[in-house]
């Protein structure tokens, strides 16, 4: 195990949304705070800092993780995609449209985290292995929508891709 002094700064290199960032940081800096405060990517939200609400969900090396439960130095050399990275993808328009048409958000605070998880689930879904909305949303809390619009948006997206979401 590596030991660090209390006031030591440690170099970290991370690729975020396709761009490489090098920073000297405190070893205790949370990944969520690194993304927000060091990089200024404020689309990743912090709601509970104990891994329950899911608002801080990002993709780390292609897998959804809660950025509030990781230290930035622990994911050195990793590839991260935040909401700001997803929106650059041409296919994101369909997701944005489905969320809006189905009124899948109100205050929008939980939304980027949910969108990251839904995006990942849709990427990995196929005709034989459909998106299980219950599974995707189990790691997210939303207090505005009662999840009804979010469920509908996922189903709409799945239907568009030629299948029917597991309901």
């Amino acid at each position: 195990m590596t030991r660090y002094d209390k006031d030591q700064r440690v170099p970290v290199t991370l690729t975020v949304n396709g761009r490489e960032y090098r920073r000297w940081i405190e070893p205790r800096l949370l990944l969520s705070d690194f993304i927000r405060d060091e990089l200024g990517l404020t689309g990743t939200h912090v709601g509970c800092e104990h891994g329950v609400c899911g608002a801080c969900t990002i993709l780390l090396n292609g897998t959804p993780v809660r950025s509030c439960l990781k230290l930035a130095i622990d994911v050195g050399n990793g590839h991260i995609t935040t909401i700001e990275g997803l929106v650059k993808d041409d296919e994101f328009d369909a997701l944005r449209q489905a969320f809006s048409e189905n009124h899948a958000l109100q205050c929008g605070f939980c939304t980027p985290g949910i969108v990251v998880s839904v995006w990942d689930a849709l990427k990995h879904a196929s005709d034989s292995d459909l998106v299980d909305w219950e599974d995707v949303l189990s790691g997210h809390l939303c207090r505005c929508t009662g999840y009804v619009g979010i469920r509908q948006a996922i189903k709409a997206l799945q239907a568009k891709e030629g299948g029917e979401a597991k309901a």
Partner: protein
Amino acid sequence: MAWIGQSIPRFEDGRLINGHGQYIADLTPVPGIQHVAILRSPHAHARIRRIDTSRVGTVAGVTGVITGRDLLAVLAPFPVGVPRPVTYYPMAIDRVRYVGEPVAVVVANSRYVAEDALDVIEVDYEALPVVSDIEAACQRPPVALHENVPDNVANHREFTYGDPKSALHHADVLIRERFVYPRNTAVPIETYGVIAHYEQSTDDYTVWANFHGPFTLHSVMAHALKVSTQKLRIKTPQDIGGSYGVKSAVYPYMVLLAATSRLLGCSVKWIEDRLEHMKASSSASARISYVTAGFSRDGRFQALDIKQYDDVGAYIRAPEPATLYRVHGNLTGAYDVRHVHLENYAVMTNRVPTGLVRGYGGPQLYFPLERMMDIAARQLNMDPAELRRANFIKRDQFPYRTASGGIYDSGDYTAVLDTALQASGYEAFRETTRNLQDSGPMRLGIGLAAVVEPSGSNMGYVTIAYTPEERARQLPKSGAVSAATVAIDALGGITVQIDSAPEGQGHVTVVRQIVADVLTVPMESIRVIAEMDTAITPWTISSGSYSSRFAAAGANAVFSAAQKVKTKLLALAAQQLGLDNKTLRFEEGRVWGVQGATDLTVKRLAGLTHWNPAGLPAGISPGVYETSYFSLPNVDPPTAEDLINSSATYGFLVDVAKVAVNTETGKITVLDYVTVHDAGRLLNPLLADGQIYGGLAFGLGSALYEELRYDEEGQLLTGSLMDYLVPTASEIPESLTVLHHHTRAPGIPLGAKGLGEGNVMSAGAAIANAVSDALGVEICSLPLSPRAVTESVMKKGGRG
């Protein structure tokens, strides 16, 4: 094209989905901001013997520290609307009264460093006895929490309407029951956040916060800061990450940060963490209600007597004790009952002070009232739906003045009930369960609740906490007002400023619909500014987002301001064309006369007022910048007889819940849920349904899972989201039906009533009624956790 009434997806969405929302934590509105961490009391009740902050300065990066006593130099206690106010500051001074109460504030160059410095502060506490039980707190007070209130009762009032004593005496059937509504809270996913800047040279404060009103609290804050009100400028961020009422109670922290900025001479920022939020933000009031209801043998509801004890926490804090009074005008719900006796106690305990949480005062009233209707139905051997129908206010009785002074403006309660019964297949389900043999642990039940949903609070209702004699010595308070400005610039760009400080409701979209309709212009030409700035936004004390007031108040302020613009531009058009303005109208952004379209457009007319004001006729002022203060009707101060119309308008809803209860595990499954609403005209049905789904999820959470639980020492047991359970997607039934009736609000131009809180008021009762039906046990407390259910089953087994 009429946009009002259409399901328009929200203009807000793209920005929020893309992660481009601007919430308080994202903002750096002034340079040199330092970060705040707050040391909090580990005791529910203790004397502070000594606070040693001497080592804080040894932590690299710390700017300074302040404790409660430092605040005395710059703050006055918060005012509160009760005859016996207690001394309440945003930080403890010599004595702590709830776990999590602020004790010291550290300011540093980062939140991490500020939290480090909390560790080197030493506080010597002398623990005191803890007051936790609401009734015991006032009946056998073990200790007084505040010297001037020896019985811990911050407010006590008694009301008599009609002749309840005689009516109860002559009733054939009396129902008496004790109900307990728990402490629960809103849990927005974004916590509180505040940024404060004190300008020493001019002695004024600017505070950014995810505060959404009521802006009456602006004067409360200014009073605490000992400045005249123009010296406190409050700004809200573009986006607020949900509130459901609870962020109105961020205001003590706004004052705390403002004072900190002044005392330490730097701008400061504080973002609350989740544990702080659960412990020390705010919560709904817990309530114990004793209900006595008198019925005739044929089911006529004759009289109601309620004694209610609210747990308002360690300090009675504005706008409390309003939980007790927000529904005062609709105390008798949907029923025609003329004899009412009510006794209210606001009791202080060693828990976090209470405040607004979605439904505010509604669930605490309707859980007992609607449960009591089912208990009565069973005793009278009537169907619960039919007992309700028999006692509903009838369609031809509107406007209906309730015994306590509410003026129900419109409705058709029977029709809504019929729709709900039909949509849920009520009769068929009853028939099925009647014929079911008890086999195995599963039981089926069905339950309903009928709720009159108030919206657009009358600012005068809070003063009913005072007796008529006390009120007579004060200036009267009343009203439900909202303001809006519609402006058109020199090239026809339209900007609308609103005063509702929304946190997800979609006001920007609805405002565009309204203004586009009035001026017949594309929605794309309209920009809506929803951020509040008390220095420049037209606002009033009742501005803000609370009491479901946007559809009734805010939307009509916008409508009225847009009408003013239209009137002005048509007057100018009449002069230009040499025609009578009564013959002119707008269509597709162009002026039309009886002969058809003219050359004049909204853009051109507005341009004239900017580019060539010298050419304007008498009576037409330069520029287009029209502000309206819209006042809802029928919201007078309380009368000497204690009659109060506590809200401007009243919608209605009926819920029908079907449940399966496992008597062995205590698990409740909601099989099907039907909710039928009558909120008048819907301005945007897509958004209206979204509010209902969200409100219902809240209601189901409070019915089944949510409770802030404390141990006997006053320690919070549910400080994380793993302990305080809010519904996830899996807990929301898939079989969910929302239907609407559309009885317009007659006194309101757009005809819309508020909605979004109703199901928080109804779901607890509907679910508890269904579970009571399933188990044959009368459920009298919430939430219906598995343990609560199995205990009820065992209690019944023990009796049988």
